[in-house]
């Protein structure tokens, strides 16, 4: 090959590779991105039924129930306007507590129960997942509902 042909081959190869990669990345992206919904959105039917998504809110006090001695549990995620019951089986994080912010990954069943396969409660006790904090604030005119047990906002 002449240097010119070689350069053209190289450029074509690179462009081809990059566009293939971009195409595949876009597809992977569309298939695997998870959206966030709060309980009000779920109640309004905005959340999909067949796709995994992130549900965020507070764990409503007095709703955490377990079958004694088993890993199965239920609790209610709330944004203080609407509630979504959640079912989960497994070990929950250290900071999973009533009246704390929580994000659950999973699917919404036709019975309206969210079946979680992963529970995230971040590891700082004052930590509130920002998306949860915002979702709740928006519903209360920009302020967090007054509740001595809910400490929102970042640690400094």
């Amino acid at each position, binding site marked *: 090959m002449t240097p010119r042909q070689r350069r053209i081959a190289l450029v074509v190869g690179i462009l081809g590779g990059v566009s293939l990669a971009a195409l595949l990345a876009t597809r992977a992206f569309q298939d695997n991105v998870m959206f966030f919904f709060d309980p009000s959105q779920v109640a309004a039917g905005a959340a999909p039924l067949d796709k995994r998504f992130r549900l965020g809110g507070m764990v409503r006090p007095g709703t955490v129930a377990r079958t004694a001695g088993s*890993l199965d549990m239920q609790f209610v995620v709330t944004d203080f306007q609407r509630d979504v019951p959640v079912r989960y089986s497994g070990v929950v994080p250290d900071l999973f507590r009533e009246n704390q912010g929580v994000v659950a990954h999973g699917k919404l069943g036709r019975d309206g129960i969210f079946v979680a396969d992963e529970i995230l409660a971040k590891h700082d006790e004052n930590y509130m997942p920002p998306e949860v904090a915002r979702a709740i604030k928006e519903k209360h005119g920009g302020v967090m509902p007054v509740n001595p047990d809910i400490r929102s906002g970042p640690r400094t």
Partner: protein
Amino acid sequence: MIPELGHFVLVLALAAAIAQAFFGLAGPALGRQAWIEVTRPAVIAQFVLVSLSLAALVYAFVQNDFSVEYVAANSNTALPVGYRIAAVWGAHEGSLLLWAWILVAWTLAVALLSRNLPPEFAARVLGVLGLIAIGFLLFTLATSNPFARLDPPAPDGRDLNPLLQDPALAAHPPLLYAGYVGLSVAFAFACAAMIEGRFDAAWARWARPWTTVAWAMLTVGIALGSWWAYYELGWGGYWFWDPVENASFMPWLVATALIHSLAVTEKRGLFKSWTLLLAILGFSLSLLGTFLVRSGVLVSVHSFAADPARGLFILAFLVIIIGGALALYAWRAPLLRSEAGFELTARESFLLFNNILLIVAAAAVFAGTMAPLISDALGLGTLSVGRQYYDPVFLLPTLPLLAFAAVGLHSGWKKGRLGQRKREIIGTLVLGVLIAVALVLGAWEGAKVLTPVGFALGAWLLLSAFVDPIDRWRRKLSLTPAILGMALAHASLGAFVISITAVESYTVERDLALAIGESGKVGNFEYRLVSLEGQEGPNYDALRGEIIVTEGGRQVAVLHPEKRNYWVQQQQMTEAGIDMHLTRDVFAALGEDLGAGRWSVRAQVRPLINYVWLAALLMAIGGIIAACDRRYRKGAEETP
């Protein structure tokens, strides 16, 4: 008094940085010899001043000076002294001071070790580093003063986050920062070369050891963080594609591309523009990482501190640095000419593929990390990107990358001469495939589709790395540190791939509900909960379990997972029980009281996982060895 002094010397350090930047850049531009000569003393002054400032903060922590807000927020009288020192970088303000100190330490190293460079060039490098120091010192002083007083003083501190009370995590930020900031040196060399319009092989040779050492530190820093997440967070894996992990991984990918592209620029005078752009990109991604971590825009385990003003400052700084460097590049680009050609099978080609694939991988990670931010900013909804996206998108460019590396290691500069090495290439490939087959059939159960591919590529690369050193040794040619370091780094990458393949393919994990005396099965392993007892530590009390793990009736491990409750922050912490072994880790973490006498237990067995971090460490050591090559210590006038 001491905190005020610390604050004051930090202001003086800013003045020294301004002097360093001004004299370093203006001196060579105006041809003033005296100005050039004053640059080095300015660096030394800045180093002494920032060191004093850092020492003042350490002193405040050791003395439990809770009249300092930052100390009160991050320390406690019950905290052991070692962790009081580590608490200096336990949160935002102190991390920034540490960052500034590491930057000036790198600058000092450049100042002291660059005496064989032309004085004008060295002064320009130091000047650019001075500009960066100005940015960071201003940032610290304006938005994040660690010496701010608390009035009245707190009776006791709020304590260091218990998660950070760990030896690996005490060392993780300094090393990671050393890597991040080290990329600023490569950036400064690139800027100095552009200002001077000097694009010969020499500048690449000068920049190479610095870039390699920075890369090595970044490697160790990331590995330490990953190890910490493994045993301290109790998540049990080595990588989670957490946005902040990505923030450190993107500069690493670009730095890896950069050290390879610098090799081509030095040896063959090619890829000049590309190398310059990579140097700019690498440091920009370091800054972006800081922005992502420190502004709190990301939902992440690391987002402790969120402050829009800080984010805005870093963003502005980022724009100035990237914009300035790219403008410089645009101005100088017409001077860049590469004459030499090379064959498609030459080493240059393989390094070109290396660079393209690494950048594609970095771009994929970047897209995943930024997509949630962009989607949120545009009001398209709050989304998150997880491993379902990252895993395939990252493997796509990196699997061919490994194959290219395995072949490329055999190729020569300019002319590939792969024909002469056909025997070695095919030999190592066949041997690699045989090893993969043996591992898939013999070692564990439950291989996946990519398992043999991963094993074969890893083994192929591992073996290929040794071919050239052995060949040289046989022919009694010199084995330079550069060659040995390169062989070690690439062999480690092969080992890394093998271990990751094993972990991803053969990990068994299950959540169990166990009462004392009960046992549960996890793969072929049986976990039996023997006891649960209360215990007390220096600043926490704990519930300690004993779990005996057996495989086929034979006892393989006794684990002691703990559930700790730290007194000051009243924070619960899981301390996993891990039996580390060269062939596998047996892991257990205590969950919670399930009622009816049962506790939840997270049980995992991961084969070969320790090699993930060991290989990363060896890779870094390979880099350090290569950077010690005598070639780099030659003066400006000698040509290789």
